[in-house]
Structures are given as C-alpha cells and as structure tokens.
C-alpha cells in the first residue's frame, strides 16, 4: 500500500476539521456598527470641520502662504487705484458742499406755484 505524504495528510485532516460556526448575532452587531460608522463618516464629509481643521493645521503651508500673499498683493494694488480724476481731494474754501435733501412739501408747493403762474 502506497504511503501518504505527511503534508497532504495534515492538510486534508485540518481542512476537513469543523469546529462549528460563529454566532449569527455577531454578524448583526457588526453590520449595525458598520452602518453607524459609515453614517458618521458621511456626516463628517458634509461638514466644514475638516476644512477648518486643514486651515489651522500645518499641512499645505506653502499653498496657504501663496494664497495669502496673492490676497494681500491684490488688496494693495486696489487701494492705490482708488482715486477719481479731476476730483480735488484738498480742502478749499471756495468749494462748499451743499447737501440737497428732497423735500416733498417744498416740491408740492413749487408745483402749485407753477400752476398758479400758468393760470395767470
């Protein structure tokens, strides 16, 4: 009778060995935990928490510095362009600013006087 190889015998014995199956409730508990975990991660994906976390962290420091530099640069350029040609910015006694306020009563009176004038 041909002898069996010990490797084959051990493999065959162990693969045919059965110790039962895990409890079904484990699967239910794991599925529940998985749903909870994926639900939490989806809420986190929709929030700004990770974005603010990134802003105040040390990650992507070069990118942050470049962005801030650009913002500062353009704001400086904009302030230098803030003047209107022909407008005298210095104070002058000849020039007096008059504030015109719409007065409805005065306007009605003016219209009435015009009407009287036209009747005469």
């Amino acid at each position, binding site marked *: 009778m041909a002898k*069996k190889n010990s490797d084959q015998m051990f493999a065959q*014995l162990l693969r*045919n*060995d059965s110790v039962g199956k895990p409890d079904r409730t484990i*699967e239910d*508990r*794991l*599925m529940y935990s998985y749903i909870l975990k994926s639900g939490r991660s989806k809420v986190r994906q929709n929030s700004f928490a990770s974005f603010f976390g990134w802003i105040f962290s040390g990650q992507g420091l070069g990118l942050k510095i470049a962005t801030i530099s650009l913002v500062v640069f353009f704001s400086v350029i904009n302030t230098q362009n803030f003047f209107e040609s022909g407008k005298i910015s210095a104070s002058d006694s000849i020039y007096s600013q008059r504030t015109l306020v719409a007065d409805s009563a005065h306007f009605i009176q003016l219209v009435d006087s015009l009407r009287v004038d036209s009747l005469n």
Partner: protein
Amino acid sequence: MQQIAIGNQPAFAELYQRYKDRMFYYFYRMLGNSSEQASDFLQELFMKLIEKPESYNPKYPFQTWFYSIANNMCKNEYRRREIRQEYSSILPLEPQLDFIDEKSIEPEQIIEKIFDTLDELGTEHRSAFLLRYREGFSIKDVAEILGLPEGTVKSRLFYAKKTLAEKLSYLKDEIEF
C-alpha cells in the same frame, strides 16, 4: 477594502461571509478550543476593520494583512494570560490517544492528538502549522503573517512534523513523514 472604507455595506457583508468561518476556526484552535472566545475575537477583528479601514495598505495582499492582525490579537491574548498566570488552566485535556486501539482511530481523534501535541510545542508552532496546512499559505506568506524569517517558519514546521511523527507512531505504516 476601498469600498468598505467609503461605506459600501454589501462589500463589508461579502468580506464577512468570506472570512468568518476561517477566522473563527483560526481563533478557536489558537485560543484553547473555546467557541465563546473565538466568537469574541472574531467580532473584535472585524470591529478593527470597521474602525480603521485606512490602516490597510493596498500594496500588500489583504489576506496576509488580515491574518497578521488575527495573529497579533492571539499573541496579545497569550501575554494577558501569562500575566494572569492562567495559561495552564485553559490548556485542553491531557492527551489520551496513546492508548487508543489502532483499528478504532477516527480523524477527529487524530486532530485532537495533533492539537494536543501542538499545544505542548507552543503557540508559535501551532500558528505556523495552522496557517500552512489549514489555510494553505505558502512559507513566504506564513513568514510575513508571523513576522518571522522564512527559515524560522520552515524549522518550526519541520520540528512540529517531527514531534507529530513520534506521537502518531501508530500511523507510521500509512504516512510518510
């Protein structure tokens, strides 16, 4: 794993179905043939997967990584038991097969004898033996899972087989060791 990380529930269910029995068997045999403890460890293993799916590196085979986590859990448990000095109390019953009539040997009895012998040898031999012969991993994969050189795995398997050959002497006529 990528699907599991983004919350794909069917992918997780599929993974659980694929590995639950294998992992249950591994924990059962590694932790002193206790169904309750094997169930607890199975649950803990998958909880680790749920809590930190990002810890898996896709460059490596999933199976090897998963078994290495399971093996580390067993090692931690052995340490806990050593601290509690309870190790001797959870060892299986004393082997009684030496007195079995050769004609009446059943595969279940041989299995029991194998695991009794592996318990005597130690957990390192048992894990290498299980991974090689039950799970069918290559020597390289077993070495990776256990974090050992291939030579060490080979020598452990050789020593385990040598000891088993002595213990299973009544099978010598049928098996070539």
